[in-house]
């Protein structure tokens, strides 16, 4: 090649030969790398879902976390239903309760148990007529006739019952209805229904009558149980239930205890039979999902889905706030210790070492034990001030977590700063005369953020775990508030019977921790300076 084959470029072109690429800040670069990591993205999505779950969930749920419906306690998310009549379905709970449901799994109401045959394991339930009364129709209906001494009469409802024994057993019969009784036209004199021989008529009536002159009425007042039921019913704005006779639902559990060989022919596979209006069902009609309580209910009839949502709020709130507190204390402590160096650093790290020498969880347990009962008060100038009130609220848990786990962050930050403070850009800043605070906040901490953020992302699941742990051993938030740990603890006793009660909070904890762990691992990889170009 000869000289003439080459063309000299001008000086400007030479200087311009430095190529520039699209301007990316450090964090944009990190995000780009994070996006490529599938697991980390799954984690991130998981975290977002869980946070939304906790924040928005309680807004959209029709239940409050403390709403109790005792009739609907301990219901699973999926259950078997029996189609007893055209549009009528029932569900038999493990506690031998019968609930009326729809074909889609919505719960309607409880059907009362009227008596049980313990020997043959047959339970009798009777459907009820609902009679809606205005509140002020509760009046004094003085009987217009003389009633027999055996009759039990309610001046509130204007009905009299008498019991008698016949070949079939004991029955109760309506012997009188007052012309103005609200049940006029609904019931008829002569209506009767079976009862057990040892049952009290007034109990069966489930009606209150404190004003009756009948001697039986004084028995009602003494019977605490029925009064409580009556009060509860009355509290429902005048809706009363009156049990009338047939038809009733008969549930036979006796086959459960028999060997298949002992069961009658055709019933070898049968465990439960349900009989209604003469029709016998030997197997369930369907298994449906619980449409009223998507995740079932707990032992007090509270919706588990709602409680897990509120639990998310509590657990995540504790975790985030505690992490932020740890972050603040840890960074301040660690950066002062690392930057000052020398004797100051030595002393501060000795303190950290002493704190660190026993399992930190022990401290937290100890603190919680103390804080839940502590009240620090002082009487100044005759006035009484409460400086600090403990208890089992979120505040105390956050305080306990925040005052112990900062040591990890402090150690980390100190290590980072020790390494960074000899970097030339820090020396340059010192040469310029930048103040110590500005050096720490502008130069040191931002460049240490990588490991700090990873550490924080890993602190969150750790805090969730610790809070669950505390709640599990009884040191968490107090009832009826629930964190996941408390939910798990409550569910523990019924584990083998109602496993779902434990499953959902446990799954929530597990998913949360997995999501944060994946995200944290991904962040650690994305922030690794070795991978960073130039």
């Amino acid at each position, binding site marked *: 090649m000869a000289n003439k084959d080459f063309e000299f470029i001008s000086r400007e072109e030479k200087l311009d030969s430095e190529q520039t690429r699209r301007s990316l800040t*450090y964090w944009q670069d990190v995000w780009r790398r994070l996006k490529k990591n599938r697991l980390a993205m799954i984690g991130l999505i998981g975290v977002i879902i869980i946070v939304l779950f906790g924040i928005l969930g309680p807004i959209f749920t029709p239940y409050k976390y403390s709403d109790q419906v005792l009739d609907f306690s301990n219901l699973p998310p999926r259950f078997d239903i029996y189609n007893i009549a055209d549009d009528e379905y029932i569900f038999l709970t493990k506690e031998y309760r019968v609930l009326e449901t729809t074909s889609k799994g919505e719960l309607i109401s409880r059907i009362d148990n009227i008596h049980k045959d313990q020997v043959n394991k047959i339970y009798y339930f009777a459907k009820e007529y609902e009679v809606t009364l205005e509140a002020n129709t509760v009046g004094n209906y003085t009987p217009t006739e003389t009633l027999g001494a055996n009759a039990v009469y309610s001046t509130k409802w204007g009905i009299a019952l008498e019991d008698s024994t016949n070949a079939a057993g004991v029955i109760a019969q309506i012997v009188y209805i007052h012309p103005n009784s609200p049940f006029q036209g609904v019931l008829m004199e002569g209506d009767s229904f079976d009862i057990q021989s040892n049952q009290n008529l007034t109990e069966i009536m489930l009606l209150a009558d404190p004003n009756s002159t009948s001697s039986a009425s004084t028995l009602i007042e003494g019977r605490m149980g029925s009064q409580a039921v009556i009060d509860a019913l009355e509290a429902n704005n005048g809706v009363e239930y009156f049990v009338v006779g047939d038809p009733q639902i008969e549930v036979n559990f006796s086959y459960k205890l028999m060997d298949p060989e002992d069961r009658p022919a055709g019933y070898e596979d049968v465990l439960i039979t349900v009989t209604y209006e003469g029709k016998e069902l030997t197997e369930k009609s369907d298994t449906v999902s619980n449409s009223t309580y998507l995740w079932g209910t707990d032992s007090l009839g509270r919706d588990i889905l709602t409680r897990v949502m509120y639990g998310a709020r509590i657990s995540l709130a504790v975790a985030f706030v505690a992490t932020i507190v740890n972050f603040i204390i840890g960074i301040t402590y660690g950066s002062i210790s690392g930057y000052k160096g020398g004797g100051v650093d030595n002393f501060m790290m000795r303190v950290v070492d002493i704190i660190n020498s026993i399992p930190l969880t022990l401290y937290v347990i100890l603190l919680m034990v103390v804080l839940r009962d502590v009240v620090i008060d002082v009487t100044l100038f005759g006035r009484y001030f409460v400086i600090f009130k403990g208890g089992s609220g979120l505040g105390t848990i956050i305080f306990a977590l925040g005052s112990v786990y900062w040591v990890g962050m402090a150690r980390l930050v100190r290590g980072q700063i020790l390494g960074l403070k000899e970097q030339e850009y820090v020396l*340059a800043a*010192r*040469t*310029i005369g*930048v103040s110590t605070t500005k050096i720490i906040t*502008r*130069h040191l901490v*931002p460049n240490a953020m990588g490991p700090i953020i990873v550490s924080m992302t890993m602190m969150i699941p750790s805090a969730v775990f610790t809070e669950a742990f505390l709640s599990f051993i009884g040191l968490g938030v107090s009832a009826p508030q629930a964190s996941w740990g408390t939910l798990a603890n409550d569910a523990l006793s019924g584990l083998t019977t109602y496993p779902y009660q434990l499953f959902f909070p446990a799954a929530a904890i597990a998913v949360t921790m997995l999501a944060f762990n994946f995200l944290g691992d991904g962040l650690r990889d994305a922030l690794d300076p070795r991978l960073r170009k130039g």
Partner: protein
Amino acid sequence: MSESYNTQKPLLEIKNLKKYFDKSRGLFSKEKRFLTAIDDVSFNIYKGETFGLVGESGCGKSTTGRTIVKLYEPTAGSIIFDGVDLATVKEKDMLPYRRKIQMIFQDPYASLNGRMTVTDIIAEGIDTHKIFDDMPDPNKAKQERIYELLESVGLKKEHANRYPHEFSGGQRQRIGIARALAVDPELIICDEPISALDVSIQAQVVNMLEDFQKERGLTYLFIAHDLSMVKHISDRIGVMYLGKLMEVATSDELYEYPLHPYTKALLSSIPVPDPNNPNKGSRIVLEGDVPSPINPKPGCRFASRCEYSKSVVYRNEGSKSFVDRLEGRIARVTLLHPETNELIVKSNQVITREIAEYIDSLGKDEFVVGRDRCFSETPELIEVKKEHFAACHYINDLDGTGK
């Protein structure tokens, strides 16, 4: 600079500067171990000149630069800048002086905070010293100054909002220079500013530094280990070895008439890109190990590797016995057992009575030991010729022949 140095008052006077680092081990050790990074160094820098400071790695030149700007607190000595001894100024009072002395660092990849934009980096000094605070529109003045600085170092306005990682090494170094210039200093310490750059860029940067010096009347302390580059840019040069100055002279004088053995060895190691170089083959190779800078023994630091620190003890000379005269001296050769090749005595090791007797038993007539004062007295930096200082006991009679 052709001014007579002796009459002008120096901008910076370093007097008996010492910086020791405490490397003592453990809480209860009795013996304190000090790393003598700078051990009694004195020199002056005059306004407008470039003073080069050279030496091999670990000789303390970078530490000197950093101690001058008080990134390290001096253990002893004075740093007199414009009449004020900075060594006595407390950190909280240092701010006004920090404006006058700035520093350019070696590693372009570590000297800029990757999280800050170029504007922020350059503006930091301006903000800290509140330079434009009394102007009607400080922000505008600041921004204009930043653009001005960028352009003067060969960058563009568009670069102002970019991040360091988007620039090459050479460009980053220029940003560092712009940062140093932003506060309008009088003295700039250049700590190996071009060592990490490509050779073609090195020349550009050095030229730029020289231009700035002319335009703004700057004074430089140029720390480096590349001798050919230092000669080009420096007016005077100081040669350091293990925390002490070995020689100080103008750069021409140093290169043509080096006095100190160490300087001579350094200069001979500069590769000459000339295949017909008449001096080929005359490279001085230094033998021996670099001694440890921790708790150094008295004597010339360079003695253990110096060609001229040898003298011979003859068996048949002197009044005392051979053994008596050998005992306590420093051996300057390594002696192995003729048959077993076992090590008897290593070079620079003290000859004990036992070893002396052994040497005697071998029947040797002479033995090379260390010269009298080299290993026992530390030489002072004295003015051997006009404006030419060297630290060596035998500077006028190196090879002992009296020349």
